[in-house]
């Protein structure tokens, strides 16, 4: 079970730091005690839970991490809820997850009473840190404050099945209703075991924790670090703004972020050669990884292995990987993007056409994956689960349909990411991959990121395409003319907007939908 790694480190390294967040440093012993008190409080207050799930309405605080562990100690999965989300969205998650208890920190408190209006069942609200100004919680809900927390019990922890939910992660759904991905204990353990085989990690290591808990990638930082007795270094929101400084201040040795963070650091001058001498492991995941940023990172961190990881939440954090190699890799990149590489051991990739039949080597298709990291599906949504978790013809294993387009590897070559299956659009009947337009814009604007959207929409598809770049000094008209020259006229590129910066979603990725809304609202640059 995933908590076993932490427990092992509590036994082996009780006095080593397990967590640094803001001004707090918690040793393994201290974090263990805190988590046991939360688990004992859950056991005392919720005697017959509707579901073995507990919500953690907290971020970047001791409560957030002790809450995760406390839920796992109790034998529950944790449901992370980000206090920065709109309260309507949080309320929907609270209702749908059917939790009986929610663990709250100072950041969750301001929205707590409003959130409780959405609860259709009595809730136990646990505020485990001593905080001032606790709100009055309306009946039938109950608040358990720090002074009423149960004492840590040293009893054996409740048993867990390998298929028990370790975390329930709500991701955005195409229809607007968030989908809850059920990640099983065994999924997460399998992932962590593969990671520990690949990277030499140990108790001296200091891991970044740039991801919010609602982002599945946060699980690597926590569970890999805790498995080996290392320290999770969680920046405050202010420290997040200057990640390039945080690397040094926190003396990080293991880095894991979305590529956008590296792009930002490069632009701010943090990736000069040799600038990151202490890093030993640098991992990127969550979106396409530009080759030139990777090259700069590898030169900035000469002691570090630099890898591109790929995988949707439905396949447990990441399920393919690719090691950046300064001599070999540039030739393996396609459209200026680093390959996603090969499947984790035990996972198998299948690149298929619309009928789920495997395409020939070298051809494009949708990536399907099978193996021990295939999660349990979507919470309370059999229909969406059946649509996305399929058994392709001629196979007997359940495969997850990623919706991502890749080129099927030829021989031993790595797989390359080619865009989303669902960003293929039709412009006046012509079939167009937006990724191709984005590659053309990136090349002309000499920048790492570009976005292309079908615009304006008509009933059958789109009349044309609009592009976006950010943070470059280019004249939009000249840039558009240059990009249009690289593309067939039927692509219908009408405009390339040059923005000061891209809008980002909560995960730090470029928010394509926000760009679409800008166009709908009449944005003309």
């Amino acid at each position: 079970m995933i908590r076993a790694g932490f427990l092992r480190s509590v036994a082996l390294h009780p006095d080593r730091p397990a967590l640094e967040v803001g001004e707090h440093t918690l040793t393994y012993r201290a974090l263990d005690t805190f988590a046991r008190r939360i688990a004992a409080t859950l056991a005392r207050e919720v005697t017959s839970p509707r579901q073995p799930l507990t919500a953690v309405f907290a971020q970047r605080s001791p409560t957030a991490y002790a809450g995760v562990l406390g839920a796992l100690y109790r034998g529950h999965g944790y449901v992370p809820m980000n206090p920065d989300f709109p309260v309507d969205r949080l309320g929907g998650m609270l209702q749908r997850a059917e939790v009986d208890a929610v663990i709250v920190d100072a950041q969750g408190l301001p929205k707590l009473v409003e959130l409780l209006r959405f609860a259709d069942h009595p809730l136990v609200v646990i505020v485990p840190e001593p905080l001032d100004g606790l709100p009055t919680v309306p009946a039938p809900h109950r608040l358990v404050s720090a002074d009423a927390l149960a004492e840590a019990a040293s009893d054996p922890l409740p048993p867990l099945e390998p298929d028990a939910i370790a975390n329930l992660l709500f991701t955005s759904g195409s229809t607007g209703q968030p989908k809850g991905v059920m990640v099983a204990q065994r999924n997460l353990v399998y992932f962590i075991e593969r990671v520990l085989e690949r990277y030499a990690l140990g108790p001296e290591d200091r891991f970044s924790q740039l991801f919010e808990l609602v982002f599945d990638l946060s699980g690597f930082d926590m569970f890999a670090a805790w498995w080996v007795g290392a320290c999770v270094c969680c920046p405050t929101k202010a420290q997040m703004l200057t990640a390039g400084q945080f690397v040094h201040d926190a003396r990080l040795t293991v880095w894991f972020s979305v590529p956008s963070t590296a792009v930002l650091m490069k632009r701010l001058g943090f990736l000069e050669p040799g600038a990151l001498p202490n890093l030993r492991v640098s991992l990127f995941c969550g979106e396409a990884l530009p080759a030139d940023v990777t090259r700069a990172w590898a030169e900035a961190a000469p002691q570090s292995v630099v890898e591109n990881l790929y995988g949707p939440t439905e396949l447990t954090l990441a399920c393919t990987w690719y090691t950046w190699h300064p001599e070999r890799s540039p030739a393996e990149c396609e459209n200026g993007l680093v390959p996603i590489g090969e499947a984790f051991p035990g996972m198998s990739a299948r690149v298929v056409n619309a009928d789920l039949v495997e395409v020939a080597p070298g051809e494009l298709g949708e990536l399907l994956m099978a193996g021990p990291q295939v999660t349990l599906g979507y919470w309370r949504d059999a229909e969406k689960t059946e649509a996305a978790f399929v058994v392709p013809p001629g196979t007997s294993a359940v495969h997850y349909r990623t919706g991502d387009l890749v080129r099927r590897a030829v021989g031993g070559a790595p797989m390359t990411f080619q865009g989303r299956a669902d960003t293929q659009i039709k412009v006046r009947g012509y079939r167009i991959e937006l990724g191709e337009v984005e590659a053309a814009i990136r090349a002309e604007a000499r920048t790492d990121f570009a976005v292309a959207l079908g615009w304006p929409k008509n009933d059958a598809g789109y009349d044309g395409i609009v592009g976006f770049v950010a943070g470059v000094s280019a004249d939009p008209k000249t840039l558009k003319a240059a990009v249009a020259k690289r593309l067939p006229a039927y692509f219908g590129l009408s405009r390339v907007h040059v923005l000061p910066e891209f809008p980002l979603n909560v995960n730090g990725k470029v928010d394509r939908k926000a760009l679409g809304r800008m166009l709908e609202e009449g944005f003309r640059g």
Partner: protein
Amino acid sequence: MSLSREDLLEFLRAELDLDEPVEDETLLFSSALLDSFSMVSLVAFVEKQAGLRFTPGDVNLGNLDSIGRMLRFVAAKQAR
């Protein structure tokens, strides 16, 4: 080369779409008025306008989180 309070206010308003009233000591980033991607544009603007280069060590909230801090940082940097 000089960077004035008015230059910064105009840049925040026109380029970073900041509509809220901003005083000299209004915290821009740590109060989430601006995000980390705005920092890239802001640093580029200050460099160009003041005719100086940020070193990586200069890029921190102590130098960038308010108009007052930026003006003091630029004055100190130019005095060196």
